[in-house]
């Protein structure tokens, strides 16, 4: 009976999670062009990767995106969650804030492509009204990544805020009353009470955001296609190009493996940080 019940999940687990993971590792060590069988070439793909300047540039672009997107998302979310927690419990307000979570990255990127359009986008129209120069948000090398990161912040901030808000609701209000009686100001209570109490869940949300940001694809694919001149060629985009533009599956798998290892290391490090901080909450 039990085996019958877990059979579908177990089959899915083995066929679409375990097997492809092992196969992905194997393919990283092969020359595989999809039309003929994979040929074992040892570490050649990784040697090529080390010498591939586009790969290093792509890794840097990805890191740049992750740093901007995750730090801004977390800062904005913590502030929003803390203010919501102290000021209002309105479900309507939380509902409005979460709207961008409901739409796809493709929709978000399309709307923002229009709003950030160099000539006709409302953002540039307003900037020019105020006397500024038009900004080529998605078509210039220096702005492409910051613009994509801001789209990502817009899309993820509400969702992250609501998770943090739920974490804050577990904090007994009496703690704040005690703080008030001691004469602590709201900003002081934010740094002394809210932030430390929020730390475990903040670490978890941080991990999820970092993992998501490292694998960003939808927004980039629709808004800039990795351009201009590879200025926003994030790793996932480069992997996609190698696999489906040049049909170099071995090389693309090797890049996936590198990204995989990066994510595992980051997850591990952040979880260690989380555990190291547990004593803070007492």
């Amino acid at each position, binding site marked *: 009976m039990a085996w019958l019940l877990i059979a579908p999940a177990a089959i899915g687990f083995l066929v679409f999670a375990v*097997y492809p993971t092992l196969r992905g590792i194997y393919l990283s060590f092969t020359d595989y062009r999809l039309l003929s069988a994979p040929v074992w070439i040892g570490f050649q793909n990784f040697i090529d990767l080390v010498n591939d300047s586009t790969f290093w540039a792509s890794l840097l672009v990805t890191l740049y995106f992750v740093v901007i997107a995750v730090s801004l998302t977390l800062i904005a979310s913590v502030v929003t969650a803390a203010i919501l927690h102290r000021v209002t419990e309105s479900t309507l307000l939380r509902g409005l804030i979460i709207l961008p979570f409901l739409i796809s990255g493709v929709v978000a990127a399309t709307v923002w492509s229009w709003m950030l359009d160099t000539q006709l986008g409302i953002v540039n129209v307003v900037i020019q009204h105020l006397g500024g120069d038009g900004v080529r948000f998605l078509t210039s090398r220096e702005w492409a990544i910051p613009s994509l990161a801001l789209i990502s912040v817009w899309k993820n901030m*509400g969702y992250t805020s609501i998770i943090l808000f739920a974490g804050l609701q577990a904090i007994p209000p009496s703690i704040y009353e005690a703080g008030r009686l001691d004469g602590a100001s709201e900003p002081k209570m934010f740094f002394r009470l809210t932030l430390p109490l929020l730390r475990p869940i903040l670490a978890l949300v941080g991990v999820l955001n970092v993992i998501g940001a490292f694998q960003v694809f939808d927004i980039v694919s629709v808004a800039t296609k990795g351009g201009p001149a590879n200025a926003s060629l994030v790793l996932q985009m480069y992997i996609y190009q190698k696999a489906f533009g040049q049909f170099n599956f071995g090389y693309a798998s090797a890049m996936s493996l590198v990204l995989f290892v990066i994510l595992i290391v980051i997850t591990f490090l952040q979880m260690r940080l989380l555990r190291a901080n547990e004593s803070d909450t007492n």
Partner: protein
Amino acid sequence: MTASIARTLPIARSARRSKFTVGRGVAWSYLVIVVLVTVFPFYWMLRSALSNNYAMIADPSSPVPVGFTWGPFLRVLGLASPQAAIAEGGSGASVPILHYLLNSVIYATISTVLIVFFSTLAAYAFSRLQWRGRELVFAFFLAALMVPGILTLLPNFVLIKDLGLLNTFAGIILPGALFSAFNIFFLRQFMLGLSTEIEEAALLDGAGKFRMLFGVTLPMTSGPIVTLTILGFIGVWNDYFWPLLVTSDSSVAPLTLGLAIFKQSSPQSQPDWAGLMAATLVAALPMLILFMIFGKRIVNSIGFSGIK
């Protein structure tokens, strides 16, 4: 009334009902700005989708639709003649958005129903049944929660291709329809907390294990099941990368893919922004309707899923 209660219970109430201060003013201003920035793009979608594309380009800053028309919606839904579309700034080429929409409904519905159903079965086995190897198998499943899925995308594409399932619903749906570590974990946690008394009573009445699962445990788990169904549906509805890998044919490709194709095929010199915004609204609308019906539940379940 409220005020007098607040006065009699100063300590319990003052945190939330205190009088206006500079701090509260700043806090509310911040919230208003956040909400405006969040909601404005949705308004801009609507405003642009109801505009004549030519007129809108001439007056890009108008806060209301320029040359109000249903044209963009009509042309993305394939209800306008090519001439009428071109006259309002469309490309005149037909994009089968309705077909993509139908594909998305099929794809998201089947995927969500299957994955929630199979996860429920597995969670039941992991929480209510005693069997050898239970903890070991669960530990393996749980490991999948920690391991990023990035490595499985390309090999899964190769597998689906080898199975001859490219450009089929089976090919898009299958890899995500059987196993979800998060769903199983989430439901198991809930089922472990259920009292065994009702089940024991049912057992005394001679109910079999299957009847117990579907007649007793499942109804008691309906809350979390609805939560996972909503979250799962949103996730699949918005998925883009996987369908991009395994479909190219408009007979199976979902709306996210159709929208991206529509955007890419829009002429660079003068894109049909009004039409594009109408299409994005069509893509977003089912989620917005879902939100209007289940809003409170979605907000609460997201908070809940984050804590677990």
